[in-house]
């Protein structure tokens, strides 16, 4: 099909107000409508938006989900978290490829299918999982893949695939105030209007709510500072990028408690004086988009969004949803803002922080999904109620996303202060040997530390909780995470751009049985450079998995070390293979012992 026929470029551009700041959204729509973003489309877009093509190309080539070459009618991306691998992803992927007679990373001969891996897609509780043209299918097994293969062979349009394939259960195993209580839309806003913005801010302060996205910054402080900051307009941004492998609790909040989240954003808007809100939804959660839009529409109809909210003169606020396009770094708040502005997701120089200079260089609050949901509850039920849960430094509850070696993976809403051991009992993980708390960028703890607590003062977490039993190879866990960081590094700063790839290569070298103590020291050195010199949190933490597993599971490394002193950087004999092929030689001198 000629691309022009289906791709209504002017229409897409008009839908996004001809605003180059919406470039990521425009490119998403083009990609979705046409399957690719070829070079001539970029030229036409440059003309329509009146921006240099190099700017469009920068953005288009940054995001994993944009591409210039066609991936056929069906693009299948297997989630590649270590949890997916533990659940048999590699074998299933191979099975699937064989069924369709194709090779990964190669468009099938009939131009129909393309199969590849992608970073964790937020379904670790239902691993292995995949995306087909951006839509998630969880709980893969041979039977489900057979069905997918059949549908593809029959060239059935995605819209006609059986809906049960795309059903994603919430798996809330332990409900709490956010996930288990009924919430009447508007309840928090009524309380807010009754008590006023200032009193509500004071309540958020009293509640001691801290950010749920990982860093744990005090929410009231952020809101207060943004409220004070001068600007033409203020913005509320909800960070729903949830890219940290093993995290999926925001998915559940958005799927089943979106009112709570939107209401939290609206409360924030009233407090800081914002008229516009943006929800940055990770591209992998594409299947939530329509539902979220309908919730927004319903809220508008109910007078909970739009002009004069709940009849309150001048309380105007609305929310727009932006989709990501496959970039973990866009969860970092300033990279997220860059992405919202249509640019590659590269973290800004800070200060200034978003509360003073954020979206469109205006004062902006960026909070995690769960933070907004908690804020709505606080507005409704008061700060003291919230502060009574959890610990003094870590008030409230925390949604934990549990996956891996346990009988009941899913979302657990626990009070802060709970021990790892308790959680392991709850989720049925008696033979746990290690837990990766808060994802690859978080903390790896061994069975010796299971009495530690989930709390900002001990184990801070954005929510991931990946369980590994004794049989698991913690080296392979760390290697998978190292690949993740190398793939997700934005490439802006030297230490991370180069350092993450050096780490990845070194881990691969060890995996091939060609490592030495020299390599171990090198990795420690790279970690030191990353921690000290990287530009953002991704780089600062990128070496954590390696360093922590090295420390806590030294055996996993030692049995891989070939020698104690030094091993060549590359496979000597392997590097002769091409020449052997060309010359047809296989004599003794055509080989090198990799001793």
């Amino acid at each position, binding site marked *: 099909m000629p691309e022009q026929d289906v791709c209504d470029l002017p229409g897409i551009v008009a839908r996004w107000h001809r605003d180059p700041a919406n470039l990521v959204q425009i490119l998403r729509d083009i990609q979705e409508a046409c399957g690719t973003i070829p070079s001539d489309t970029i030229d036409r877009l440059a003309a329509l938006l009146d921006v240099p093509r190099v700017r469009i190309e920068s953005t288009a080539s940054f995001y994993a989900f944009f591409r210039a070459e066609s991936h056929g009618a069906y693009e299948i991306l297997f989630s590649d978290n270590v949890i997916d691998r533990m659940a048999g992803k590699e074998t299933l992927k191979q099975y699937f490829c064989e069924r369709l007679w194709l090779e990964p990373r190669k468009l099938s001969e009939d131009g129909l299918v393309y199969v590849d891996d992608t970073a964790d897609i937020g379904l670790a509780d239902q691993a292995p999982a995949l995306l087909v043209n951006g839509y998630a299918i969880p709980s893969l097994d041979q039977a489900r893949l057979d069905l997918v293969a059949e549908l593809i062979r029959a060239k059935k349009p995605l819209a006609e695939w059986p809906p049960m394939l795309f059903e994603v259960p919430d798996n809330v195993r332990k409900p709490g105030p956010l996930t288990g209580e009924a919430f009447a839309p508007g309840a928090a806003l009524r309380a807010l209007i009754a008590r006023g913005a200032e009193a509500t801010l004071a309540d958020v302060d009293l509640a001691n709510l801290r950010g749920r996205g990982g860093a744990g910054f005090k929410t009231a402080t952020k809101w207060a500072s943004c409220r004070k900051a001068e600007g033409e307009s203020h913005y509320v941004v909800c960070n729903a990028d949830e890219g940290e492998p093993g995290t999926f609790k925001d998915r559940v909040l958005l799927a089943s408690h979106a009112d709570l989240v939107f209401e939290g954003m609206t409360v924030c808007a009233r407090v800081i004086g914002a008229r516009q809100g943006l929800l940055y939804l990770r591209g992998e959660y594409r299947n939530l988009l329509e539902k979220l839009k309908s919730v927004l529409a319903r809220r508008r109809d109910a007078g909970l969004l739009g002009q004069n909210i709940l009849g309150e003169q001048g309380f105007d606020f609305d929310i727009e949803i932006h989709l990501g396009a496959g970039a973990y770094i866009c969860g970092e708040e300033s990279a997220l803002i860059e992405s919202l502005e249509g640019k590659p997701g590269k973290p800004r120089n800070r200060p200034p922080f978003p509360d003073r200079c954020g979206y469109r260089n205006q004062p902006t609050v960026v909070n995690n999904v769960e933070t907004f949901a908690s804020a709505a509850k606080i507005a409704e039920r008061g700060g003291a109620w919230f502060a009574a849960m959890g610990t003094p430094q870590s008030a409230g509850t925390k949604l934990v996303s549990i996956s891996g070696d346990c009988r009941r993976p899913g979302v657990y809403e626990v009070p802060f202060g709970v021990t790892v051991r308790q959680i392991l009992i709850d989720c049925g993980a008696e033979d746990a040997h290690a837990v990766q708390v808060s994802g690859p960028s978080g903390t790896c703890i061994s069975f010796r530390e299971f009495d530690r607590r989930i709390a900002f003062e001990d184990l801070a977490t954005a929510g991931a909780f990946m369980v590994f039993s004794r049989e698991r190879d913690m080296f392979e866990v760390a290697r998978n995470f190292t690949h993740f960081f190398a793939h997700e590094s934005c490439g802006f700063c030297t230490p991370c751009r180069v350092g993450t790839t050096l780490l990845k290569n070194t881990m691969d070298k060890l995996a091939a049985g060609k490592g030495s103590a*020299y390599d171990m020291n090198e990795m420690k050195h790279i970690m030191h450079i990353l921690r000290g010199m990287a530009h953002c949190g991704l780089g600062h933490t990128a070496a954590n998995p390696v360093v922590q597993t090295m420390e806590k599971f030294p055996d996993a490394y030692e049995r891989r070390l070939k020698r104690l002193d030094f091993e060549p*950087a590359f496979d*000597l004999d392997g590097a002769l293979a*091409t*020449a*052997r092929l*060309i010359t047809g*030689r296989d004599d003794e001198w*055509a*080989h090198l012992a990799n001793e």
Partner: protein
Amino acid sequence: MSKLRVATCSIAGCFGCHMSLLDIDERLFELVKAVEFDRSPITDIKHCGPCDIGLVEGGVCNAENVHVLKEFRKNCRILVAMGSCAITGGIPAWRNNVDLWDCFQEVYHYGIGLENGQVPNDPELPLPFDKVHPINEVVRVDHFLPGCPPPADAIWRFLTDLAAGREPRLDYEMLHYD
């Protein structure tokens, strides 16, 4: 004080570093008083015995280079990567992004003056690697002496420092990557 035993070799290099070594002029006499040469193009000794210092010129481009390099590593207490090629792969590494098939084609099929050329399969010929590598990617290296070639003064300073048991220190003008 007993003489230092020094071995030198050029693997994937151009002998430029060796020329520079000879360029230390009359200081050669002083040098000869302080050191004696083991395997080296200067002596024509074919295999390296136990030495104090090994100076390696050139990168690693084929299987034979590895055998030489490993012999040096085994026998030399201090192994020195001498010159840009030994340190970065240097000019020979320009071929690193040319497909090896194309290299062979060019050399044996299309090269000027070749007719009906054939790729030889003679075991006597060293088999080339996919890419040229610096020597520190194959063996542990103790010291690096950059330059293309390293200036004679730098080599002299380097060797006299090593002979005196000092950590070699190059003056600003002696440090060059070209």
